[in-house]
């Protein structure tokens, strides 16, 4: 959707029309009456080496988005591309549905064909047909091979996308040593020999600032401070060299004096490993330091997005403006205005067909109520806003 002119750039992650609805209330016989629209039709993309900050108040759907991207939730609809590859079926579909898919798409077709016909098929499907013929039209062998190949691709995908969680006191298994925690992804993905794993763990611990690594490897999480634990969580996320990391409020549990250390470390690692973050946070000041681009979410929708400095200095959407005005300024001599916003965040359960921000917006006009939620419009280069009034389409 964005950056149509620069399709050729190295996109690391692209999300198209992602939606996630949670059932909120069921009828007597199990059909769902209400849905929580946690993430409602959002699209964005991240270029390699860039980072996107996803900001918003609690309940706006930012964490749900992150969890979808690492495969912890299955989206209701929408597509996820990692390095230009549509990974939606790999991330969210189980093996049984993959098996069904092979049977219905390929096997049914191939089984009735002669060898000669199989050879005449072209493209990717042709490769499958060839393989099918090579395997002596053996149905189960073909499925086996197909699924094995798929398993490998799922494994590779999961290696490329990792996550850092908010609370380092809960995200580390208290019964495992630091070595086991950090090496676990390598064990799961069967990477390297034991010796190589040890070396790799020592390297990564040193690069996250836990030096000397030998003194940390065989300790348990409870022996470490909050900042050190978060460093362990970062080490675990980076051990498989991911190209993309979802960081869900990784510094919000840490003290100020320790927080900046973690922020700087994460930025340095992103550079060293040429890695991108989806940085989820409620703190706009932290987002400013951790991202090149920012997307502001409200009730499951992205309402404004663009380059971080641009959005923070020239906010256009009334919600972004209110959010920015509400941030306390660490300077007793500066006085900030009162945020111009009404009411409080409604629950995103079956939201009415109008702008999501309508009932809190000080500038809302009739058009905002009568029409659907406004689409994102580019109001200045790279700066997109979803607001009829701002984009001058208020009828």
């Amino acid at each position, binding site marked *: 959707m964005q950056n149509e002119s620069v399709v050729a750039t190295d996109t690391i992650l692209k999300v198209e029309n992602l939606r996630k609805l949670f059932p909120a209330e069921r009828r007597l016989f199990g059909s769902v009456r209400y849905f929580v629209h946690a993430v409602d039709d959002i699209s964005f993309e991240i270029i390699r080496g860039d980072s996107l900050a996803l900001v918003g108040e609690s309940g706006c759907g930012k964490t749900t988005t992150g969890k979808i991207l690492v495969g912890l939730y299955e989206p209701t609809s929408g597509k996820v591309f990692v390095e230009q590859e549509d990974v939606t079926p790999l991330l969210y579909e189980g093996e049984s549905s993959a098996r069904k898919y092979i049977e219905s798409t390929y096997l049914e077709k191939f089984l009735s064909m002669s060898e000669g016909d199989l050879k005449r098929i072209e493209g990717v499907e042709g490769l499958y047909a060839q393989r099918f013929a090579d395997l002596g039209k053996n149905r189960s062998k073909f499925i086996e091979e197909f699924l094995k190949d798929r398993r490998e691709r799922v494994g590779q995908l999961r290696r490329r996308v990792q996550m850092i969680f908010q609370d380092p006191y809960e995200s580390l298994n208290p019964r495992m040593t630091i070595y086991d925690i950090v090496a676990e992804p390598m064990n799961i993905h069967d990477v390297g020999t034991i010796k190589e794993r040890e070396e790799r763990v020592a390297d990564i611990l040193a690069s996250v600032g836990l030096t000397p690594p030998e003194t940390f490897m065989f300790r348990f999480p409870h022996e470490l*401070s*909050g900042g050190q634990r978060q460093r362990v969580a970062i080490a675990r996320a980076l051990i498989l060299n991911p190209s993309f990391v979802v960081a869900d409020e990784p510094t919000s549990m840490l003290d100020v004096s320790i927080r900046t250390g973690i922020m700087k470390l994460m930025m340095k690692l992103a550079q060293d490993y040429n890695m991108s973050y989806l940085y989820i946070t409620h703190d*706009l000041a932290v987002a400013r330091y951790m991202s090149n681009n920012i997307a502001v979410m409200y009730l499951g929708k992205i309402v404004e997005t663009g380059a971080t400095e641009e959005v923070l200095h020239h906010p256009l959407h009334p919600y972004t403006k209110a959010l920015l005005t509400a941030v*306390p*300024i660490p300077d007793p001599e500066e006085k900030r205005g009162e945020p111009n916003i009404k009411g409080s965040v409604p629950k995103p359960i079956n939201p009415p067909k109008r702008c999501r921000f309508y009932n809190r917006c000080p500038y809302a006009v009739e058009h905002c109520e009568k029409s659907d939620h406004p689409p994102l419009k580019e109001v200045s280069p790279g700066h997109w806003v979803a607001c009829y009034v701002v984009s001058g389409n208020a009828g």
Partner: protein
Amino acid sequence: MLVLLSVKNLKMHYKTKMGYVRAVDGISFDLDSGEGLGIVGESGCGKTSVSMTILRLLPDNAEFKGGEVLFDNENGEPVNLVSLAESEMRRYRWKGISMIFQAAMNSLNPVYKVGDQIVEAIQNHFPDTPTDVAKKKVAELFKLVGLDPTRMEQYPHQYSGGMKQRAVIAMALSCDPRIIIADEPTTALDVIVQDRILREIRAIQKKLNMAMIYISHDIAVIAEVSDRIAVMYAGKFVELADSVTIFKRPMHPYTYGLMHAFPSVTGKKVDLVTIPGEPPDLLAPPRGCRFYPRCPKGDKLCEEKDPEYVEVDKGHFLACHHPVQPGEVVQFNAE
């Protein structure tokens, strides 16, 4: 004239299997009526323990180790709260000094109507109050904190986070206290709600000319509500001054570091300071200055001798052997 609250060399340690945790280790400050004092510090520095010691709401393993909390009870002699019997102390809690607790949303009882809980608080401290009078008072308090009085008949689960916070503030105000201690009153709230609550608290404080002690880890929040700020580190105050001085001319290297570790949303994007290391273990704090192991200005003297907490300028208290000079740039060489 007497000061409203005077804390002198207050010490309170927690007894544990490993020894004493020196959570409050010689804290002194004065609080005047109508004043907002902010206590800022990192988690585990003892800032909540200070308020709990003043109100004497301490767990069984807490041991009082000395000092005084003098509260002006408006009839001549100030009372020393630490020497009172528990039954007498109850007269001062809530009526004299009340508190807004951390995670206030959880301090409401889920099975009682919110209005009834506040009525109960009033009748506990003023047993002669008839219920209808108390209810009227609660309705007024609700209006004061920006809640619709019809909500008195609702239960906590029908409230949003911000509304619960307002209800808890109404409860803290219910017995007309002279001091309110607010411990992280907005930490769990979203910024827009936080902004409203802070405005509300500040307005009420001004309107009722009440003294407040704000406790928070968030310097930005403290900056907005306090007239004076105390910076606490490892069980001690390291610096106390009016809030502009603390921000514009911090003298303690720790204060300096904190001020420069805070990212700003719209101001200049400066390189943030990282203070190396971690706060000390309060079971065995460093022999000399407690900040010495992390301080770029520390030397032999700091290692040996704990600096005294003295008034270096009018109203500016400091505990440091080598204060930061005007215009000096302190280099924290973290990792």
